[in-house]
């Protein structure tokens, strides 16, 4: 395709553009909070439990540790667990998504709040993933891959399984539709090139 065809120079009034801020987003599924709580706090709670149990074991080294004033050892992991739980709660309240005619909008983050917009025409492929815990909680993640490196991939977490499947299907249909469009424009370009020859 000629560069001239890609390039357009028409003035676009910003106020007439579709504004992603005006879109009403759908909050993530209710099951997302328990999933986030378990995955983010369980490790630290286990660590705290280990720190509580260890001094009770009949080993001299632990007695020495208690004597040396290491009684506070369970507190840091417990503190992290509490912070992680608060974070998960706030995150679950803010996390939301929406599908527009031509793109997917996903909002997440607690301190750094991000709103990501991915046009369907730029998605290379889509993947739906769910682990054992997600299966139990009826959740699913949808991963959207675009060009621009691996960190550019967007994972939409917290969709219930039915929504995730619908989203994946919708995305695949839209990608196929835009790919057809690509092929048509490609054919047109090739034809015009042949005519030029």
């Amino acid at each position, binding site marked *: *395709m*000629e*560069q*001239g*065809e*890609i*390039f*357009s*120079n028409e003035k*676009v009034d*910003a106020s007439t*553009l*579709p*504004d*992603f*801020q005006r879109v009403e987003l759908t909050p993530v599924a209710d099951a997302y909070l328990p999933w986030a709580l378990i995955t983010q706090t369980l490790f630290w709670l286990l660590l705290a439990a280990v720190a509580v149990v260890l001094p009770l074991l009949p080993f001299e080294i632990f007695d020495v540790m208690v004597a040396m004033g290491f009684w506070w050892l369970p507190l840091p992991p417990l503190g992290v667990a509490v912070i992680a739980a608060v974070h998960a709660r706030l995150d679950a309240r803010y996390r939301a998504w929406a599908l527009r005619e*031509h*793109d997917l909008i996903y909002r997440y*983050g607690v*301190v*750094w*709040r*991000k*709103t*990501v*917009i*991915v*046009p369907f*025409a*730029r998605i*290379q492929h889509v993947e739906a993933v769910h682990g054992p815990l997600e299966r139990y909680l009826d959740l699913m993640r949808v991963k959207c891959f*675009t*060009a*621009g*490196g*691996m*960190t*550019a991939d*967007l994972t939409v977490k917290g969709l219930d399984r039915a929504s995730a499947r619908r989203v994946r299907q919708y995305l695949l249909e839209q990608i196929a539709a835009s*790919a057809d469009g*690509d092929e048509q*424009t*490609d054919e047109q*370009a*090739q034809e015009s*090139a042949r005519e*030029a*020859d």
Partner: protein
Amino acid sequence: MRPIDLNTWQRLAPMALLFLIINGGAKFVRENLYAFAGAGAGFAFLDRLGMREFLLGGLIALLVAVLIAAIYHRRFRFRIEGDAIRLRRGIIENKDLRIRFARIQNVGLSQPIYFRPFGLVRFTLETPGAESTEVALPGISRELALALRDHIARAGGGAIAEASDEDVTAEEAVEDVGRETGDTAVLHRPGSLRLFTHGLVSNQVWLIAGVGAWLIGTLRERFEQWIDSIGVSLVAQRLIELGWVAALAGVLSLVLLLFGLSGVLSLIRFHGFVLRDLGDRFLAVGGLLDKREQNIRREKLTGLTLYQTALGRLIGQWYLVGKQATSKEVEVDRSGQNFLIPGLRKDNFDIVARLMEGFSVPDEMRPISRRFRTLFWSRISAVALVLAGLAFWQLPDQRLAVAGALGLLLLVLWLIHRSWRCWGWQVADGVCWIQQGLFGLRRDAFELSQVQQASVVRTPYFRRHGLASVRLVLPQGQVTVPFIALDDAVDLANRAIHAAETSLAHRV
């Protein structure tokens, strides 16, 4: 000359076997350099071995290398299959690769000096998805390489007719590197002086200094012994006796040597550099010891970056890197395999519009918010002052050092100010420019229609002050415009998404 039938299986040239052995050996040494030089263990190991064992080991290694290269050479074959190139290679694991011409974004030909007597070239193909060069034919005849290149250009480009209209066929373009012609296809032909100064101002000089320091550091003991053995230490001793003047002269000559070396390396790398516009693609040719030809398809160019290093700023010299889709996470070597155009001055900036239609270097950039400076100034100063106050109180005998540290704080604050001054952005006619830097400058330019994703990021500080950052994912990587007004950020994201959704351009 009999035309080459590209549809039949082609093999590497017989002489390529020799180069495979040499390159394989060089690669082995390069990859195991740490084992040899890193800890000095290699030398200690060699000291304990006798010459006979060493030679025997070397001979076995050579035999293995020859055997591996011979099998690789024998199994290596390629041919054109319809709209694709197919390649079979491998030693233990056979790899069968088929790449459609439409996916190819770069075709490269290089001719190291030792290839020239045999008329061989190294032929490479790059696609957006691969981490490194996808296809490398390490030693085929020049005729075969040119036939392949032209076939790929015809099949993948579709607009080769334009090139022949201008009476500059690709072959002529390669052969006529040194010829001064007035043809319009030449976009840039920097002279030797510009190429030399490119070496001076490019950051390559620091790389050379770093490698030199590492090598000297690693081999210091041996180096000192060697210096002793050739009696240079007497000269060094004499220099030390001469004092500050000699030390200064020594450092100065070392710096001059480094810069001179960097300039000469640049001259060797880009010798006779010419960039031509062949309609559907750009052709860059240059190099003294390794004559390289890069064919970049115009439609595969997704943006460009103008760089000006701190030293380049002093003499007003820039260089340009054409950007393409990549799967690399970080830009390891921004000058390495990229499409680099050296030796640009401000009056050469019209090249930007000729490389990418509709692009022009903006005279002025929109600044980012002053809050960028305020935030970092206030946070860093607060932490530094609290620490300094504590140190002043607790360590009365270290007060001079604390005062010195506060002087350093002023330097940091000035650096933050410089960084803020360098940040800038501009959107005009669907083309976005983002500028950043500290002492040097970097200007990224891309069409908004190339955007793959747009994110608007807001921290609590941003929310309090009505600010936001915009992160745009492009085929060539990510760019960020930090600390801009929320309305501007939303507008930029909306424009980018609208441009991407209404663009006729394909997925990369």
